[in-house]
């Protein structure tokens, strides 16, 4: 996982473009079972990170991840801000400057556990955790980026069949079934965008 400043700036640009491209769709998903602002909130967060991309990319990776997390927390708002922010900040705090794949996998596991505590959620609650857990499992197996991306998409799709137990969607009870979770969806989009870049630029 040796990403240089150019990689980091490119990844920030890719993530921002991916969320921008799918913002309407994310808000539509959120309108079905939440308050309809997930696309706008994510766009606001990624735009804020993008505006700082040069300064962020110049930082060592752990500090860059922590900074991205803080910018997301301060700008996404809603329920997603603290969740994405916690994920990135914990990743940044836990990673050494030259982490091995095993160390990265362990740090990711801790960061995902922190997200679960923050949201007081677990597997099957119809949240972005339902994408993060299977992604983590693929990372542990050292799967190829393409496989991780496919896993993320499939995991997001699977949240459609779940009944929400956390967040605004949980008020709908069984009526939340049949709609993909917007947080899971944005998480899969970002995961796939990052994996696509890694597959293209870091063949291993």
């Amino acid at each position: 996982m040796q990403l240089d400043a150019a990689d980091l700036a490119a990844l920030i640009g890719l993530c921002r473009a991916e969320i921008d491209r799918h913002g309407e769709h994310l808000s539509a998903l959120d309108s079905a079972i939440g308050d309809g602002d997930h696309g706008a909130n994510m766009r606001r967060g990624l735009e804020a990170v993008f505006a700082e991309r040069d300064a962020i990319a110049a930082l060592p990776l752990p500090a860059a991840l922590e900074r991205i997390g803080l910018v997301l927390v301060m700008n996404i708002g809603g329920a997603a801000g603290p969740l994405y922010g916690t994920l990135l900040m914990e990743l940044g705090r836990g990673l050494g400057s030259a982490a091995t794949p095993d160390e990265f996998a362990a740090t990711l596991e801790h960061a995902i556990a922190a997200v679960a505590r923050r949201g007081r959620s677990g597997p099957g609650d119809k949240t972005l955790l339902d994408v993060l857990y299977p992604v983590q499992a693929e990372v542990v197996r050292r799967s190829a980026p393409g496989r991780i991306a496919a896993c993320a998409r499939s995991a997001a799709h699977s949240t459609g069949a779940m009944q929400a137990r956390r967040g605004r969607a949980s008020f709908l009870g069984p009526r939340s079934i049949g709609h993909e979770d917007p947080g899971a969806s944005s998480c899969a989009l970002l995961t796939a965008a990052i994996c696509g870049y890694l597959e293209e630029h870091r063949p291993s």
Partner: protein
Amino acid sequence: MNARAAQPAASSSANVGIVIVSHSPLVAKGAADMVRQMVGDCVPLAWTGGNAEGGLGTHVAGISAAIEAAWSEAGVAVFVDLGGAETNSEMAVERLGPARAARVAICNAPLVEGAVVAAAEASGGSSLAKVVATAEELSP
């Protein structure tokens, strides 16, 4: 402007402060009005509502500003409405650092009733723990 101190709090810092966090600025301000009517100016009070763009939502910066505005050495009790208000409040509290964060409590209580009852308790000079316990008696 969607966060503000509901009054100058300089003379009342001995009492626990109250912060109201709602997705809606109208709800937050309305609840603060009810608190103010109940206890006058003897409790530090601030509210925040809405996202950074003025729409419905909550955001960490607004909550942080409200906590600062209602800060009391006796502590601050925070009242929230829906999920994002709670998680964003947790983030705002953590950003205070451990020493000050230990003096802030996010209450498991209804927003309006909790804030009013807590403010009444705080106006008598009760500790943060007592203020929180009184408000949380409202929750089943």
